[in-house]
């Protein structure tokens, strides 16, 4: 059990605590005994309107991801409490985890201009949020812990996406840990033309894939949700990943053939890859020798598309990539995850584009 501190106890500046706090091992913990050392912002409610789309999200803290080497890693995420309106979200989760939990968390898919509500329910003994990354709502719907507020109980975020493109959503409470634990999912905004067009008056596509590429430091995945917020050193400054994954599937082997990640397409078809740098470390993605066209990034069309054979990205960047192979074959896509200081490759996740 982690060290706990009441709010009237010494401030960070007043203490030189060198506790060996492990962060509690109290995954899911208890709010009354939580390690927060400062009061949590009281949530304010933004004016709510009649929504076109509602997503209901809950919390799971007991997911397990099966790795190719036989090990299991604990995963946290958002459960799908159902939705009203919005697009099909069934194909964008990666690994099924049993009990209705998926990793990444179930995707949201809406149309530009719709009024959307995300209704989050958090068990009363912990805090989480949903930040719709790249979506820029009124600040009370921004979902940032301690700024726009941490949630326990129920809270409704409201937003009306103005730009089609690729986004994602993630927890923004003790973010360094909660996002690493897997609390994220894809968020797609379609243009008025609907799925099949990248953005308003943008290029069309026949096949679509979401590659959320992430690294996992399994040593972090034994921490409790409040880890580090006591002020003890729990190692959250130092990420040393040992797994490299694509959309919730181990990139060592499984992602090479995982349905929905490995792409099967016909020559002449156009593929839209929605690439999300879901980890914290820099990545370099190569496309097996294929030249690709970047048409948008971070939910905004580029003034001019750019033809490349690799892309370097940093944490949370998204790139919308059109690929139209001219030759049949199986192209191995490799994503190197690099050390943020040396640039050395720490690991590589792989998948394939199979063109028949």
């Amino acid at each position, binding site marked *: 059990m982690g060290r706990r501190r009441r709010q009237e106890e010494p*401030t*960070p*500046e007043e203490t*030189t*605590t060198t506790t060996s*706090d492990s*962060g509690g091992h109290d995954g899911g913990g208890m709010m009354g005994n939580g390690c927060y*050392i*400062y*009061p949590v*912002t009281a949530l*304010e409610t933004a004016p709510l*309107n009649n929504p076109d789309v509602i997503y209901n999200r809950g919390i799971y803290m007991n997911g397990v991801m099966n790795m190719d080497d036989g090990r299991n890693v604990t995963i946290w995420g958002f459960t799908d409490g159902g939705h009203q309106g919005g697009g099909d979200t069934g194909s964008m989760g990666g690994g099924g985890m049993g009990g209705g939990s998926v990793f990444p968390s179930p995707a949201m898919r809406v149309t530009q201009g719709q*009024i959307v509500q995300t209704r989050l329910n958090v068990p009363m003994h912990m805090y989480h949020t949903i930040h719709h*990354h790249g979506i*820029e*709502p*009124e*600040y009370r*719907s*921004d979902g*940032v*812990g*301690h*700024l726009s507020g941490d949630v326990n109980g129920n809270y409704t975020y*409201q937003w*009306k996406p*103005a*730009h089609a493109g690729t986004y994602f959503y993630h927890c923004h409470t*003790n*973010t*360094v*840990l909660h*996002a690493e634990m897997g609390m994220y999912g894809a968020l797609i905004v379609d243009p008025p033309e609907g799925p099949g067009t990248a953005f308003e008056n943008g290029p069309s596509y026949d096949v679509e894939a979401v590659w959320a590429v992430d690294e996992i430091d399994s040593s972090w995945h034994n921490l409790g949700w409040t880890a*580090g*917020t006591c*002020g*003890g*050193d*729990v*190692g*959250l*400054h*130092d990420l040393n990943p040992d797994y490299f994954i694509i959309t919730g599937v181990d990139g060592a082997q499984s992602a090479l053939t995982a349905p929905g990640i490995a792409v099967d397409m016909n020559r002449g078809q156009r593929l839209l890859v929605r690439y999300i740098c879901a980890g*914290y470390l*820099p990545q370099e993605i190569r496309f097996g020798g294929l030249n690709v066209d970047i048409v948008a*990034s*971070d*939910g*905004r069309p*580029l*003034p001019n598309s750019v033809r490349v054979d690799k892309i*370097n990205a*940093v*944490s*949370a*960047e998204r790139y919308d990539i059109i690929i139209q192979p001219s030759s049949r074959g199986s192209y191995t896509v490799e994503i190197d995850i690099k050390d*943020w*200081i040396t*640039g050395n490759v720490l690991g590589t996740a792989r998948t394939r584009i199979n063109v028949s």
Partner: protein
Amino acid sequence: MNRRNFLKFSSAGIASAMLGTTGLISWVPRAHAATIRKTYYITEGFITQPDGVDVYFRGFSSSSNSLNAPGEHIIAQEGDTIDITIVNTLGSSHSFVVDGMVDSGRISGGQTRRLIFEARNPGTHLYYDGRNAPYNRVTGLHGGLAVMPDGRDDQLFAGSRRFEKQYFWIFNDCDPAWNNAVRNGQTPSNNFTPRYFTLNGLSGRPPGAPGSGVGTIDSMHDPRTALHGHLGERTLVRCLNAGMAQHSVHTHGNHMEWLTSNGQPRPDVWLKDIIPLDGDAGSMDFIYPFEPAPDAWPPMTNATLQQAKNQGRHSAYPMHLHDEMTQTAGGGLYMFGALTDIFFEPN
């Protein structure tokens, strides 16, 4: 060396020495070139980090009894003469370098050196100690130099997109083991593993935390760092990275207009909510447009901002690095790292 011989600074003391001189930049263009004079004192001391740990730093300081890390910024106009005096109060040798403009060479301990050079290459530059690279720079001996294009007060370089006001954001990563080695005249022997992450020398204090809202401690409220803008008040942010790690600069509320990387104009201006900032003295410039948050519903207007203010609420969004290890201090303390706030103000 006895620690008692060193100056010890709270971050408050440091910031007050710099207030109004780093970060938010004032500038009025001139028809004729001028001479910009500055004196920097190379000093040393300890800075208390958010977890209470004192860490050794050096800086290009504004006086012999202060410690500025980063140093006060310099702003000049293309063609100006920059007249810098460096007073090395320490026993160790240092230098003053701006790539492409000036390199003092060795300034031995106790020496004073005057440097006169022309402001060239409109844009954002790092001044730094080039000796014992990169250790002296990472230990605090760095600052920002802005060179404005001739006769302009609203462009980063001739032909760039226009802005109304400008800030410096100077990021740094700190591995205390490296700083301690520099203090002892040694070459660090460990791989760089940063434990503290700063923006203009400060780190965040989330609401409710001790020091929150105190601009001399809290990077989220430091007036040199936190952006304040009315709707449409386009704001240039000059980003420099004195540290070693590559970062991911993320703004909420608006996308950024990405103008440059490492001093080079981008071929096209992309609208991004994430922009890479390279490690080891990388740089990047962007404009934060202060447009109404595009996905707000009901829409953001001056009236809604005024209403929020009348109700005692801030319409504020964070900027934080998305390589989230940077949001910690001493291995924990989420939100005590390199971040700030962006305040949308009513007219």
